[in-house]
Structure formats: C-alpha cells, structure tokens
C-alpha cells in the first residue's frame, strides 16, 4: 500500500511537469496545426542554459527561470519566423513538411548541444536536489513539489492570459479558425510567432525545473518530444485542459510502469498509451469531456 501511494505521489508530481510540457505543445498544435517535434529539444536547450547559469555564475535554477524562459521565448519566435512561417508560402506536395522541418530543427539543436557540451552526462547539485518532505512514510521530493507548484502557477497564468487578454483571445481565435480570424483582422503570422514563443517558454520552464532532479545530455530531447506528443494526443489535439489531464495520466502511468513492471519499460509506457488512445479513444480526453 505504501509503495502504491508513494508511486501515486511521484506520478502526480511528475505529471505536473509533463502537463507544462504538454500545454506548450498543445498550444502550438492548436494554432499552427502541427506537432512540434523539436519540443523536447527546446527543453534541452533550456536545461543547458540553466546548467551554464548554475555552473559558471552560481545562479540558482529557480532564478534561472527568468533567463531560460525569455531566451526560449526568443528562440521559439525565431524558429517560427524564419523557418516555419516561410513554409506556408512554399508549394509542397507533402502535407507534413512543417512537421518535417521541426525534425530537422530538433536534430540541429541536439547536435549543436553535443558540439558545445559533448555527450557527457551533466547534473546540477543543489541543496534541495535530494531533499524531501515526509508525510507518514510517504516522501515528497522538495524539488518536484516546487516544480509542481510552478507548473500549476504557470498553467493558471496561461489560462488567465488566454481568456482575459486581447492577445490571448487572438491566439484562441486563430486556433479555432485561422481563416476567419484573419478576416477579422488578426495578423495570424504574428500570432503564430508569439504562440511558438510561448510554447517554447513553457517547455523551457519545465526543463529548468526538472534540472535539479535530472541528469542532462544532448539526446534528452528525443524522449521528451515523444512524451509531449503522447500527452497532446492523449489530451486531444489542441485541447489545453486535455493536456493537463494527459500530462498527469502519463506521469502516473510512467510511475506505475516503472514500479510494477520495470524501469526498462518507462519509455515504452508512453508509446503504449499512445497506441491505446488510437485504438480506444481516438480524439483523446477531449472526446470524453468536450472541453
């Protein structure tokens, strides 16, 4: 029973971070209509940034959020502006060429990181990296709890932004109907650039928050990209609320998979969920809740 509860706690906490990763991806999916297969790699960039700030300047990872999020916001905008938006004017036979482009971007980001930092495993050891709080026999990792809180805060902030501000409304408009939004005078190219920036900033936050409890190497992006798309599919393409459920579900499934089946299978769990969703719940959670 203790093991069960412990696994549950670990799964939910991790799920909070996954939700953060998933929301960014989902936002991009909604507005651009594409799956961003460089999502995990953007997170990797943010992690290296955090590592550098900590290692060379001694900046705490939580403070590094104020650098990593804006930096990735800029990187995301750059990618959208110069690599993805131009594709809309290119006449292409393949419908998925934007997705392909993100694959190329992912490869480039990974290899640049390898160039600079080599393939070695890096980690950031902070005072709270291994700290935990106990409720009875159940441990709550301090870093994960803080990460969870930040994730909740950022998600709430994002919802507020999407619902209350003009820019947020424009983003939702483009997400619902790009053509109609353009007819209403919304500059959809600009909205796309900003959305990619926001998506990148959110995943950057996830990366920075994850670093104190994770190790870092250039290829870490791939598995997280896959997690992100599993979350997005699970939540229903383009549904932000669904992404939160998707993130927590994936976190739980991975935790239980690792505890009861074996660590080797942790990565497989997401992919199995993906297949199950395709089989039994095409459309994801969105279909159940109509959110």
């Amino acid at each position: 029973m203790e093991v069960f509860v412990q696994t549950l706690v670990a799964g939910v906490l991790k799920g909070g971070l996954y939700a953060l990763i998933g929301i960014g991806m989902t936002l991009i999916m909604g507005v651009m209509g594409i799956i961003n297969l460089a999502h995990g790699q953007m997170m990797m960039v943010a992690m290296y940034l955090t590592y550098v700030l900590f290692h060379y300047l001694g900046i705490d990872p939580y403070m590094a959020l104020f650098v990593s999020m804006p930096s990735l916001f800029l990187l995301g905008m750059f990618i959208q502006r110069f690599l993805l938006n131009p594709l809309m004017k290119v006449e292409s036979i393949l419908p998925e060429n934007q997705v392909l482009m993100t694959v190329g971007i992912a490869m480039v980001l990974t290899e640049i990181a390898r160039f600079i930092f080599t393939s070695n495993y890096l980690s950031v050891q902070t005072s709270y990296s291994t700290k935990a709080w106990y409720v009875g026999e159940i441990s709550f990792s301090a870093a994960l709890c803080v990460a969870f809180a930040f994730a909740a805060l950022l998600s709430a902030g994002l919802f507020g932004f999407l619902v209350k501000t003009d820019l947020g409304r424009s983003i939702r408009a483009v997400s619902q109907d790009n053509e109609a939004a353009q007819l209403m005078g919304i500059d959809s190219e600009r909205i796309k650039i900003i959305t990619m920036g926001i998506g990148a900033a959110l995943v950057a936050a996830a990366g920075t928050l994850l670093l104190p409890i994770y190790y870092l190497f250039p290829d870490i992006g791939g598995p997280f990209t896959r997690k992100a798309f599993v979350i997005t599919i699970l939540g229903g393409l383009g549904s932000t609320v669904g992404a939160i459920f998707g993130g927590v579900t994936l976190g739980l499934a991975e935790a239980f998979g690792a505890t009861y089946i074996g660590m080797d299978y942790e990565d497989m769990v997401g992919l199995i969920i993906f297949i199950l969703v395709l089989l039994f719940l095409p459309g994801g959670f969105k279909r159940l809740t109509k959110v």
Partner: protein
Amino acid sequence: MKNHLGPLAFLLVLIAFPLAVRDPYYQHLMILVLMWVAIGSGWNLIAGFTGQVSFGDAAFFGTGAYTAGLLAHKLGMSAWWGLGLGGIFAVIIAFPFGWICFRLRGAYFALATLALNEVMRHTATIWESLTEGMVGILIMQTFVSKIPYYYIALAIAVVSLISVQVVMSSRWGYYFVSIREDQDAAESIGIDTHYYKMVSLCLAAYLTGLAGSLYMNYMGFIDPTIVFSLHDISIMAILVGIVGGVGTVYGPAVGAFIMVAVSEVFRTGGFGLLEKLTAATGSPVMVLVTKYIKEAHVLTFGLLVIFVILFLPNGVVGGWRKSRRSH
C-alpha cells in the same frame, strides 16, 4: 517503349559498373545507393504518392533485417531466406498498424510511425532472449567479394522501381494520388481510402523490409541502434524520398544517389580529401576543420532537412504533374 530507353541504357551502365570500377569502396557505396533506392521507393509510395508521411521507416527496415538475422541466428537457416520473408514480416507489422492509424486523419499517422519506430527499437533492445539486445546479431557473410551483393542489390532496386512504375500507372496508382490530393473527393468517387492507404503502406513496408534483409546479409552485423535508427534510417529515407523528387517514380533513385554521396562526403571528410589537405598543409586549423566536419555528420543531416524543406520541398525531379504530362 521510347520512354523506357533512358532507364534501360542506365541499367546497362549499372550492370557494367562493378566490372569497370574494381575498387571495393566504390562498389560498397553503390550497394548502399541501390539499397536506398528500394527504401526510398517504398517511402515515396506511401508518402510521396499517397500523401501519408512516414517518420518511422526504420521500423520496417529493422524488421526485415532482424527477420534475416534471426533466421540465421536462431534457426540456423541461410540469412538469404530473409529476402523472401523480411518483406513479409514487415507487412505483418505494417498491416495492423495501418489498420489502426488510418482510421484517423491528420497528424496521427505521422506520429504513429514515429512511435512505432521507437517501440520497435525498444522491443529489440529489451527482448534479449530473441534479439540479443544491444549485443546485436552477427552472421557469417556468404561472399567475400562485393560483386554478388552488388547484383542482388541491383536486382532489388530494379524490382522496386518497376513495381512502383507498374503500380502507379494502374488503378492503385490513381487511387493513391487521389487520396493524397483530396481524401473527401476520393471517397466521394468511390475510393475506399482506408483500404487503399493500407495497400500503399503494405507495399512500402514490403520494399523497406526487403532492403532491411539485404542489409543484414550484406553487412553481417546489426543491432537495434543501427537498423531502428531514427536519424540514419527513418530521416534518411525521408530525405532520399524528398531530394530526388516527391511523387515521381525515379526520384528516389536520384535521391538515393545524392544522399548516399552527401552523407559519405561528410562521414569521411570529403572522401579523405580534407585529410590529404591537412597532411599537405600541416595547418592546425585544417585538423580542427576535418575533425568537426566528421563529427558534424548528424548536424549536416539536420541542416540538410531544413534546407531541403525550405528550398526543395518537391525535390529535383519535380512533381507528379511533370512526370504525367503524356499519356
């Protein structure tokens, strides 16, 4: 008959190639090119002609390779049986996969292929009792000379191209392109789009699996990271398919040649040219450049993907439109 003359002449050149070029290194490269012709043709069928972009061709390639390898390793049969069975096993994977994925439209198929790629690699890594995991499978190669492999690869490449040519000028071909161009319209004119996407995927998987079993026989060694590689197989297949010409019969042949050449140039530092230059000049800068260029082979691949999609999204041969102007 007239428009077959060009390819026929080219085929004669290819048949004569290993007799004229005795250097095993160049023979090796040509074998790779021919293998990629088969893979590229398969990718082009499902992605270029049918419009269902696969990001996970390695799943089928690896299945073919492991079929051949395991036949030899576990059953003590000749790995050459893999040429017959590798494609079939790839289809056995592709069939249920396609049946599930094609029920949904949009990005699902592309993502699912990517997931399949990963699932297969993980499975091959974890299931050690069957696949030997990361240790990989080593078999004895049948021939010492490259020449027999060359002709087998040539035969596979030619069969691939002819199959695609035949398929694309038949009912199936028209149905595939209709599905790519507009799925609703295709359904409305009586095309069972789910069924024909399956047909296209299975054909593609067969060709890719076939190439995989050739790889096992030729290289003699495989492990999960080689044959289920996302970059070296799946992305390479996409590049071969795009660079040559999306939705053209001969595009993948051109693409295979260009891509094998490009990746070899970077892998070897310009066929060793950079090393010679380094030795000749003795400059430390050149040493560094050579080292970086060799290390940057995946980076170049990524840059190439970006470049190709931005500037050559339909490849050098051109689209279906151009190739089908005459009847």
